[in-house]
């Protein structure tokens, strides 16, 4: 028990260290940018419906909305966390990143598309957008296994 507590503390301090001695290299280079897509399936071998983008951004945002978001912007900040999780999943894959993406996707589906509840399985994929000599290109970098919605703790 003590050893587990000690390991927990050491791990937390390791995570804290980059905040106490930060690198501050914001936007050193513009790396390929991830998008999270999802779909619901009736069974893992179901004929796959098309992928849907997680929270596509609005076509336009009024100045009034931008000012409001200075004070209240929870959904956007959660979307930025999803971007971090997608990047982590590619650089240093852990169960935490995949579980966290599933948890937030499931909560969003519960909230915004309850009609999808008749399908029991959630699946997500990651697409990275980058620029090459032909313009913008999209590459699928990760396709997660379908997961039962009921197994996602929320």
């Amino acid at each position, binding site marked *: 028990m003590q050893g587990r507590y000690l390991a927990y503390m050491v791990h937390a301090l390791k995570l804290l260290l980059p905040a106490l001695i930060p690198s501050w290299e914001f936007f050193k280079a513009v790396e390929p940018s991830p998008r999270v897509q999802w779909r619901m399936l009736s069974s893992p071998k179901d004929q796959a419906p098309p992928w849907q983008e997680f929270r596509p951004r609005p076509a336009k*945002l009024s100045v009034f909305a931008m000012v409001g978001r200075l004070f209240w912007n929870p959904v956007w*900040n959660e979307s930025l966390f999803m971007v971090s999780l997608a990047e982590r999943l590619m650089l240093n894959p852990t169960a935490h990143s995949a579980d966290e993406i599933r948890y937030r996707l499931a*909560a969003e589906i519960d909230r915004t598309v309850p009609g999808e509840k008749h399908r029991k399985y959630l699946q997500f994929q990651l697409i990275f957008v980058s620029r090459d000599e032909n313009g913008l290109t999209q590459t699928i970098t990760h396709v997660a296994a379908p997961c039962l919605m009921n197994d996602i703790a929320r």
Partner: protein
Amino acid sequence: MTLDLALRTTEILLALAFLQQSAEHIATARRDRLWFIARMICCLPLLAGLQTTAALGALAAISLFQLHRFQGPYNGGSDRMSLLILWCLLAARIAPDLFWQEVIFGYLAFQLTLSYFISGKVKLLNPEWRSGRALQDVFALSAYPVSESLRALAGRPRLLWVMSWLVIGFEVVFPLTLLNSSSLIAALVIGASFHLANACLFGLNRFLWIWIAAYPSLIWFQGRLLGADL
């Protein structure tokens, strides 16, 4: 600005920023609600100036939980700055004497200066930033622009070249503004405007509030260095 006033102002601004962040967390993730309610409760004495050392200690303990819960920062740089301010304030409050208080709070001011200078330096060294191409990519393909209409700015390379150099110039020159109190205040106003623009265009609202929370440390630090009291 005296050290006491700078510490107190930073505590108030940090508490306000944490209240805002915590309310956002509570709105989005049900399973984290208890921790963020506890965090909001700890912010209240910090805001009121009651038992501030204990409140900072409790917030520091919660910050370790957060790091474990999210396996790192939730919102990248803004969370890193939040942690830096929090732990520097706590260390300054429990420091054995004035000398160590000044060293610790001076470290926060130093890191704030570096936050601008280093991000300017890495851009200056990158040819894509110097040509404006990097900022074009930020608008064209990154996840940051808050609306699709903003992506159209990627098609205005001259404007983005000017914007890139304004950002690089401001960030690289920032440490020199410490030489004079008026230039520092002007730089902090420009800095806050820069964060405001990032908040509007890229939705990075947490950066705005948390960077402003660190500003009193620099105002105190500059006065301490030059012997002036703003």
